[in-house]
């Protein structure tokens, strides 16, 4: 431990200059525990998509673990202003497999370096230094730390457990861990450890026979850990080495020999061959104990026979982890190397169900017949009743001093005589062996105080004397009331942080007003979004239930994006009520006061509604014949709300029989005579608006007295669109009936049911086309195809077989000069004629 402490101070003195401004260091420090030192903070970044994410690579050392690691925090900006901005990304333990490499093979990524740690699996993480010049220094510091660690023995106290506080645990747990001191108290616990090599002797009869060994403490122990070696085991049960029940007689005697007047209960007993360990606790303590686990390691012949080895029991008492080990190490003088190896074998081989090893405990008690002897020396050792003198020759103390075994362990002062080897049933040493302190109790960990350590001379049936040790241990425990309070505070703080750290953006307006909007005239507008929080924000426009983010007459650019901290960007909206979207706009106007409401969604945050409005300048295009027949003045004189009212008017009363706009177009075309030749080229061409189209739009919408301002082709196109753009086809709701009509007479019955404006427009149109065809201006087939698909437009019927040819045939039927039709049509024809004069009047 001390060695590690030295290297830390070396490391930090060499790293002093590069540690960034005090504030950053202080802020980062808040994320770590008291016994963790920050040696270096290296600013770097990672590429994440098109964005750079800053990472602070923090080189930390832990006093409790004796190890180093790099913790990578992502943060939104430097310098930091608050610890909340630090988000733990990755934790790299600087273990044997740890690698920090700079990739200089490719020129593009010349600055790139990667980190790799054994614990994280075969994944490398790439970083780029923010300041290239500092990389060398950072690299040297890290390499230095790694070198220091590998120089230390592998079986030492080093561990990376402290890193678990930074990995894979929730924010709440991290926070609670950090504030541990506020709710942790230490529960005084008495632990009684006892060990005895019983030399295969049967347990003595008499229910209190072990009391002299097990009831020595002044106060009642809370936990007993009793280890026995060379337990007598009948040969047939020798083979089942993990047989839990050892010898009922022994256990009974133990229980009966516990501190009198206190109720005890067996927590766990465990045996490997002749090595037996039992943990007995005060009854009420049992419910505070969790995760009781045990295991064994065989040593001895071929390291497998199990005549030597160790067993261990691990348990968690409140927040403290305790491990008891009972071991019987290699025997005989001169075998200290074998004993050391047995120790290493047990430390390296013992692991519990949860992966914990012996060293992963807060409090470790190692007892047993460790078999270390006094060194042979000439002349024979001094008086056997002077432990101080004898212990000068104690192998275990010497090996421990030389770091050959039990590194980090402590032992109390030995004030008793060597515990081996006695002539059975006497207190006389068997002088064929050098008397030695074979039976020992060692401990490692924090807050352990030895109260008593002694052997029992009065128990004589074995060639070993039993040994016991009494400890006062302060076990970490949560004060439930305090814990509850801290937990509540933490939850509240985490909630608040989550609410405060919610991505936030602001918009400079939530109503986008396009002002005057006209058919076939695009216009655009924009608003600005600002990132007002300390995080990068991703935004997007949310799909509404209609599967699109906005109405078809709107376009949004960009539809999604990211905003870095303190940045802003403009979002452009383009409004274009064209031939494809005008009916949608008019539908919207009929039911709403705005053009659209967009949902600007902030990822992981709120939604902002953006209302799109404007003042639509009504035009004849897109309006139904019925609506146009309700006007009493030019459409340019109407406002959006007035046209909305007209569109919602369902009364059967019309101001005129046929829209003036329609009549004006027909009239103009008719008067062009031969110039109309081929004016209706194809159905498809109607949507490719001519350059002078808007002049026609204004001429119609203002009831202009001026000469027609555009070409004949544009007039023809305007006529097609006037018929095609309304939401409903002119011949609805009878399109299906008309297409299925067997005769013209039958069809005529449906035509008569059309609204007067639609019927009049239809009849007038047919008459106009008939005249044009008769005059040779138009091709019958071409005209029938084009107008048929417009007047009989229907999404349902278009799936019918021969839909197109049926439309065409229907139109031909009504355009063709037919006596019968003329007869029937005369009424309507006359009607429209009257009206045309009326219009001219």
């Amino acid at each position, binding site marked *: 431990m001390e060695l590690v402490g030295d290297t830390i101070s070396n490391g930090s003195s060499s790293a002093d200059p590069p540690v960034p401004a005090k504030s950053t260091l202080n802020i980062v420090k808040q994320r770590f525990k008291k016994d963790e030192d920050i040696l270096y903070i290296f600013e770097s970044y990672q590429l994440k998509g098109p964005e750079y994410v800053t990472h602070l690579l923090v080189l930390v050392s832990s006093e409790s673990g004796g190890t180093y690691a790099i913790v990578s925090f992502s943060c939104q900006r430097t310098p930091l202003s608050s610890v909340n901005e630090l988000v733990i990304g990755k934790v790299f333990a600087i273990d044997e497999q740890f690698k920090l490499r700079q990739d200089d093979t490719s020129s593009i990524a010349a600055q790139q370096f990667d980190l790799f740690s054994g614990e994280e699996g075969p994944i490398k993480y790439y970083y780029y230094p923010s300041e290239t010049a500092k990389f060398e220094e950072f690299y040297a510091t890290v390499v230095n730390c790694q070198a220091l660690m590998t120089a230390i023995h592998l079986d030492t106290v080093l561990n990376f457990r402290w890193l678990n506080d930074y990995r*894979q*645990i*929730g*924010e*709440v*747990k991290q926070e*609670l861990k950090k504030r541990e001191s506020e709710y942790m108290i230490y529960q005084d616990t008495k632990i009684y450890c006892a060990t005895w090599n019983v030399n295969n002797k049967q347990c003595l009869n008499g229910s209190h026979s072990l009391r002299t060994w097990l009831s020595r403490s002044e106060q009642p122990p809370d936990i007993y850990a009793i280890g026995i070696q060379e337990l007598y085991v009948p040969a047939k049960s020798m083979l089942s080495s993990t047989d839990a029940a050892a010898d009922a007689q022994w256990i009974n005697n133990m229980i009966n020999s516990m501190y009198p007047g206190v109720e005890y209960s067996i927590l766990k007993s465990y045996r490997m061959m002749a090595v037996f360990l039992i943990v007995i606790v005060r009854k009420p303590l049992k419910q505070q104990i*969790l995760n009781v686990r045990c295991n064994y390691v065989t040593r001895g012949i071929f390291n497998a026979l199990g005549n030597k080895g160790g067993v261990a029991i691990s348990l968690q008492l409140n927040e403290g982890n305790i491990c008891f080990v009972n071991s019987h190490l290699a025997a005989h003088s001169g075998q200290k190397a074998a004993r050391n190896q047995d120790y290493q074998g047990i430390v390296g081989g013992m692991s519990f169900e949860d992966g914990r090893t012996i060293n992963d405990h807060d409090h470790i008690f190692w007892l047993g017949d460790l078999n270390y002897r006094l060194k042979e020396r000439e002349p024979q050792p001094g008086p056997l009743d002077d432990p101080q003198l004898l212990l000068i020759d104690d192998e275990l103390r010497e090996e421990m001093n030389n770091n050959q075994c039990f590194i980090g362990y402590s032992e109390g002062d030995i004030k008793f005589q060597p515990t081996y080897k006695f002539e059975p049933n006497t207190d006389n040493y068997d002088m064929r062996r050098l008397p030695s302190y074979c039976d020992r109790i060692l401990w490692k960990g924090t807050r352990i105080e030895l109260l008593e350590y002694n052997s029992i001379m009065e128990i004589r049936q074995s060639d070993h004397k039993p040994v016991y040790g009494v400890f006062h241990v302060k076990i970490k425990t949560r004060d439930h009331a305090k814990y509850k309070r801290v*937990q509540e505070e933490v*939850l509240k703080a*985490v*909630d*608040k942080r*989550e*609410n405060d750290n*919610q991505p936030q953006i602001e918009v400079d307006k*939530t109503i986008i007003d396009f002002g005057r909007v006209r058919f076939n005239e695009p216009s655009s507008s924009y608003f600005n979004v600002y990132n007002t929080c300390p995080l990068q924000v991703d935004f997007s426009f949310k799909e*509404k*239930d209609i599967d699109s983010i906005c109405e078809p007459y709107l376009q949004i650019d960009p539809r999604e994006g990211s905003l870095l901290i303190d940045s802003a960007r403009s979002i452009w909206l383009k409004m274009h009520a064209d031939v494809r979207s005008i009916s949608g706009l008019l539908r919207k106007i009929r039911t*709403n*006061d*705005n053009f659209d*409401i967009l*949902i*600007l969604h902030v*990822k*992981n*945050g*709120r*939604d*902002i*509604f953006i*209302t799109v409005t404007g003042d639509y300048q009504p035009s004849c295009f897109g309006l139904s014949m019925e609506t146009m027949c309700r006007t009493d003045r030019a459409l340019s004189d109407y406002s959006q709300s007035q046209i909305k009212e007209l569109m919602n008017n369902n009364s059967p009363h019309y101001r005129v029989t046929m829209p003036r706009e329609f009549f004006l177009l027909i009239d103009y075309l008719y008067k062009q005579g031969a110039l109309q030749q081929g004016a209706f080229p194809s159905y498809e061409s109607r949507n490719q608006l001519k350059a002078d189209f808007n002049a026609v739009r204004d001429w119609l919408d203002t009831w202009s007295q001026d000469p027609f301002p555009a070409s004949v082709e544009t007039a023809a196109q305007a006529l097609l669109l006037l018929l095609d753009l309304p939401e409903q086809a002119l011949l609805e709701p009878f399109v299906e009936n008309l297409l299925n009509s067997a005769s013209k007479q039958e069809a005529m019955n449906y035509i008569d049911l059309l609204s007067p404006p639609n019927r009049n427009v239809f009849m007038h149109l047919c008459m106009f086309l008939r005249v044009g065809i008769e005059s040779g201006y138009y091709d019958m087939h071409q005209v029938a195809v084009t107008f048929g698909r417009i007047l009989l437009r229907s999404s349902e019927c278009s799936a019918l077989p021969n839909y197109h040819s049926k439309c065409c045939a229907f139109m031909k039927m009504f355009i063709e000069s037919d006596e019968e039709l003329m007869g029937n049509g005369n009424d309507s024809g006359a009607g429209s004629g009257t009206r045309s004069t009326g219009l001219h009047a």
Partner: protein
Amino acid sequence: MSKVRSVVNRLHERIDYLIEKCPNMTAAPYNYNYIFKYIIIGDMGVGKSCLLHQFTEKKFMANCPHTIGVEFGTRIIEVDDKKIKLQIWDTAGQERFRAVTRSYYRGAAGALMVYDITRRSTYNHLSSWLTDTRNLTNPSTVIFLIGNKSDLESTREVTYEEAKEFADENGLMFLEASAMTGQNVEEAFLETARKIYQNIQEGRLDLNASESGVQHRPSQPSRTSLSSEATGAKDQCSC
């Protein structure tokens, strides 16, 4: 065995779906056992955002601007020793946003329907809010009626008794509260959660239905096996 696997896979898909659909959620270990989604609805100016703010921050927000959109707030509460994360969606009350806000009702486990005791018109509109809620949420959605601004007794236009009768007729939970003083605010949010939790305990809420508005989280996120999710529940709680 393959059947079990397919169930597990479907569960994972569901979780992925929920994670994707659900803002404010991270894949990091969870600090809670359940997430309940709440919506707060009601006319403009009745104090919906202030109620949310009072609940999450324990403060009154004076001069609160009109909500133009949907705001989120979260808070972890405890019911019956279970940590529950409330994810609260505070909607805009303006009439013109009515159609857009309808899309937010989906998947709400609790609906807090708010009116202002000093403006009768906000009370009169409750039936239309209630119709929306009933039409757009799950039948087991808990609807809690809150008469806000109970601190403004002198300008009261709707009596407690009248609203209580309305609530009883329609099977709503009801309290008068004040976002300004904080009176009954905590109670309204917590009572709603208790009722939802009770519905879950009594099996009246199908947690597997995507629109239940409740997500159940095993305390320890485990993608390895069903059994570890089942046994990981108690002592490995990550909070």
